[in-house]
Structures are given as C-alpha cells and as structure tokens.
C-alpha cells in the first residue's frame, strides 16, 4: 500500500490494470442498481442509504475497513443475508430492472442467475465432479453427457481443468486451498450465471493461487459481471474497473478504479487507500 502511494501518478497508472477508456464503459447497461438500501441486523444499522449502479461486463471492487459492511452488501445482492435471523432491509435492489425484494421474486431464481464465491473455500464433501455438477443437477439436468460437458467447461473456465482432469472422482477436500477455491469458482460457473459475487476470494490463498484467481477474474469479465470484495488495495487496483469505498455501512466514494486510486474525491478514501487507517 505504501509502495503504491510512493509511486508517481504515471507509475501508478501503469501498475493499475490497463482498463479501457472510462467514457466507453459508462455506456454499458446497468445489471444491479441499488437504491437507498438500508439493512439492520436486529438494531444494528449495518448498511446506510447505499446507492450503487453496477454495470455489465465490469469488475466492481468493494473495499473498506473490517466491519464496514462489505460482506453484508454482497450477501444482500443474492439475498443470502436473509439466512441470518432478525435481518431487516429497506430500499430496493434492481437486478435487471426487477426489485429483488419483491414478495414475488424467487430467491432460488435470483441465485441461479447470480453465482457466489465465498471467502473461505467451501466445496461439498463430494467428488470434484459432483461438486461441479451440483448446480446443474439441482436445476434438473440429468443427462450424463451434458453434465460431463458442463463439468469440463466449468473447470476449464476456472483454470483448473489440467490439474484435476485425471482425478475427477476424488474428494474435493483432497485438493489444496487454492485449488479448492478454483473448484468453487468452477462450481459457480457451472450454473451459467450472469453475475458472480466474490467475497475476498483470495484471502486464504498463497500469492501464486491469488495470481491465478486474479487472471481468471480478468478473463471472466468478458462474459460475466463481477463484484469482488477485497482487502488488498493492489488487487483492487489491478483487477477492477470500478471501485466502491465503504465506511461504517456507507458508500463514501464510487468511481472508476483509476480515479479512486489516483485522485480520490474524499479525504477518507485517500486516507484508507494510503493505509492511514483501516
């Protein structure tokens, strides 16, 4: 972080991933539109008046100090947060134009369109094959040939096919942490989602696995919209197009990643990315 700051603007720009011209990006359609979202855990006000338009085929990074509500926000996007007892929300989140809090909106359908990769690798205690085939199977695909194809395609998509193709029937728990995380990414790809949510997907990984996952995110954004929570500033700068800075449940700043890291509008953003607090 300090290193990042000590560089001149020009160098930083070079370090930041070569993003396409921001002007063209704003033309991309909005996938997720969050409007005045509030969320309470019991009496604890965890998200406050969040407004965030998230665009198609972009990587949106969410950064902020521990406990500021990043995980809560990302879990709200696929309504996983409702698994916690006593959660209340207000405001709306439009996914492709429809409010996901609508009584008629089916969470199962939403989660089929929106895949999630968790902070800790969480494969099922099943074979690698069954892990990947889990999603397609619950959605009714039984044909072995089709499943085989989905498994291969998803594993290739998650850049782990070559490592596991000879042992698809071994338990996923026999893999290393980094491999498990890529299995989890492959598993999310297997439901052919529209959006992929990632909550600190590399926090438990070594630098090489981290790099692989980061490269993967870059490839995936061609076809998916990705929202990624990260504690790693360099990572956010490297892989994302847009960055949202959260603090105490509020969005302090949301802009192009270049802008956030080079010329943040808010003093608190600058303090955070330069490592002065958090």
């Amino acid at each position, binding site marked *: 972080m300090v290193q990042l700051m000590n560089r001149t603007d020009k160098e930083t720009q070079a370090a930041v991933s070569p993003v396409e011209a921001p002007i063209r990006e704003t033309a991309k359609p909005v996938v997720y539109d969050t409007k005045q979202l509030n969320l309470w855990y019991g009496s604890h006000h965890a998200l406050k008046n969040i407004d965030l338009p998230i665009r198609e085929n972009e990587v949106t990074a969410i950064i902020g100090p521990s406990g500021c509500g990043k995980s809560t926000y990302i879990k709200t996007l696929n309504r*996983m947060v409702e698994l916690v007892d006593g959660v209340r929300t207000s405001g709306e989140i439009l996914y492709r134009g429809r409010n996901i809090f609508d009584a008629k909106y089916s969470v199962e359908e939403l989660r089929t369109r929106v895949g999630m990769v968790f902070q*800790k690798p969480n494969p099922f*205690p099943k074979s690698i094959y069954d892990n990947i085939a889990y999603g397609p199977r*619950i959605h009714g695909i039984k044909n072995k040939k089709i499943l085989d194809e989905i498994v291969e395609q998803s594993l290739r998509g998650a850049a782990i096919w070559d490592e596991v193709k000879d042992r698809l029937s071994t338990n996923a728990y026999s893999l290393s942490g980094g491999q498990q995380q890529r299995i989890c990414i492959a598993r999310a790809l297997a439901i052919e989602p529209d959006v992929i949510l990632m909550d600190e997907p590399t926090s438990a990984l070594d630098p090489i696995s981290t790099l692989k996952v980061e490269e993967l995110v870059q490839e995936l954004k061609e076809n998916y919209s990705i929202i990624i929570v990260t504690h790693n500033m360099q990572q956010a700068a490297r892989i994302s197009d847009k960055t949202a800075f959260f603090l105490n449940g509020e969005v302090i700043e949301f802009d192009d990643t270049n802008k956030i890291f080079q010329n943040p509008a808010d003093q608190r953003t600058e303090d955070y990315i330069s490592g002065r607090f958090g």
Partner: protein
Amino acid sequence: MRITEQQPGVNKRFIDPASVSKRMDGRKITNSVFKTLFFMATLVALLVLGILFYRILSQGIGFLSADFFQNFASRFPEKAGIKAALVGSLWLMAVVAPVSMFHGIGTAIYLEEYAKKNRVNDFIRMNISNLAGVPSVVFGLLGLTIFVRALALGNSILAAGFTMSLLILPVIIVAAQEAIRAVPQHVREASYGMGATKWQTIVRVVLPSAIPGILTGSILALSRAVGETAPLIVIGVPVIIQFLPSGVMDTFTALPMQIYDWAKRPQADFQKVASAGIIVLMAFLLLMNSIAVLIRNKFQKRY
C-alpha cells in the same frame, strides 16, 4: 502491535523460573494421584462388568443349545426355549425402527433446518431433551392409556411398538439434531448460493453428511428399546406364549419379559435358563452396537 511499540527490555517479568521449578514436583505428584484415582474408577466398572459376564456365561452356557432357540416357554427348565421371545423382539424392532426413526429424524430436521429461532421453538427443544429423562414406566402408562385402551390396539405388537417408539423418540431426536448441527453452515450456504431450495439442500448436502451420526444414535436408541421391560409389563404383554405372532395386531412376548419371568421362578435351574436368555439378549445388543460402530467408522465424513 503493542509489543512492538514497547521498548525492548521494558517488558516486566511476572514468571519467576526458580519458583516455577520449585513447584514442579508438587504439580507432577498431583497429576499422578489423579491419574491413579481415575484409573481405579475405570477398574471398578470393568471389574463389575467382568463378574457379571463370568456369572452369566458360566451359568447359562450349558442351556444354550439348538433346542433353546427352537422351543417355546415351558414349565420344565430343560424344555424351556426362547423362540417366542426372540421372534417377538424382532417383530417389535420391525415396528419401532421405522416409526421412531421416521418420526425422530423428521422432527430433528424440522427443528434444526426449518424452525425459526424463537421462544416457542427454544421451549420445544429444551423439553425434548427433558423427555429423554422421563422414566420408562411413565411411557408405559401413556401407551396403556392411548394405544392399548383409547385406540383399542390391545397388548399387540403395534401397541408395544408405538409405546417403545415414544420412549426412544427423544433420544433419536437429540442424536439426529446433534448430527445435523455438526454439518458446517458454509456447505449449506454453498448450496443455497447456487439456487437450491431448502429441501434440495437437506437431501443433497445435510443428510448425506449427517446420516452416519443419525444412524449411530438411532441404533443405540433402538438397543435401549430391545432391553426395556417396564413399558411392556405396564401395557400387559404376556410372558408365556405358545405360538409365533403372524402380524402386528397379534400379541407377543419379548426377550427382557421372558428373562424377567424365568428369573423370578423359584427353581434353581430356571436361574440358569434366565442366564442363557441374558446371553442371547446381550449378543443381540452387541450386534446392534457393532453395526452402529461400523457405520460410524465407514461413513464418517471429515471437513
């Protein structure tokens, strides 16, 4: 963080190595005293078990013949057999196992996966554990009132099976709840996160991981039902039966009933017959417990 802020050498020392080593001997002695004490406690249990085994085996082994398994009850010790009781106990299990397991596992799934955490459900959970401590004779009275009389099932296998199911239900529920709770939340989240419904998640993720624990608990509970006598006496199960039941509405007798009857007869030889019966009952229980252990070892999943 704080440690690096302090100057080196400024750290106060609270532990004096000299007094630590001075106290070391005393600590070691205390340790070995308790070790011996606990070993003795174990020894007493083993001793009692050993005496029990020896007495029963030496008394009963002589009566364990092929005839013993083929004869019905008799007034003459040398003609007495365990056939009716053994078959009766198997019939009883055939009712108790499906009824109690279906009911118990279903309740556990509801309480752990579906029920919201509120006061009513907490109250239910607490009372199920309490039910496990209710004496079996009380369940016998309940069975007598409801199944034997109100539902007019008489002293049939069905009535006894339902009563025994009620008796072991709390144990099965608690065991199944624990097994279900031991399935890590993060694998459930993984399933929900892909759009699985609650039912799909339960069937495909929760139960496969919980089933070894559930089965182990259930089998141990079932072996309790095999050995229980009090509820059977209360609902009026006979001991002397000269036929085999042909359906769940027939009356029957069970191993512990038969043993109890033999043991209270005055003739010395019937004590030996009772011992032979106990050997059969213990073999039955041992078999069930080994199946439980086998299942646990074979299917246990690690995370």
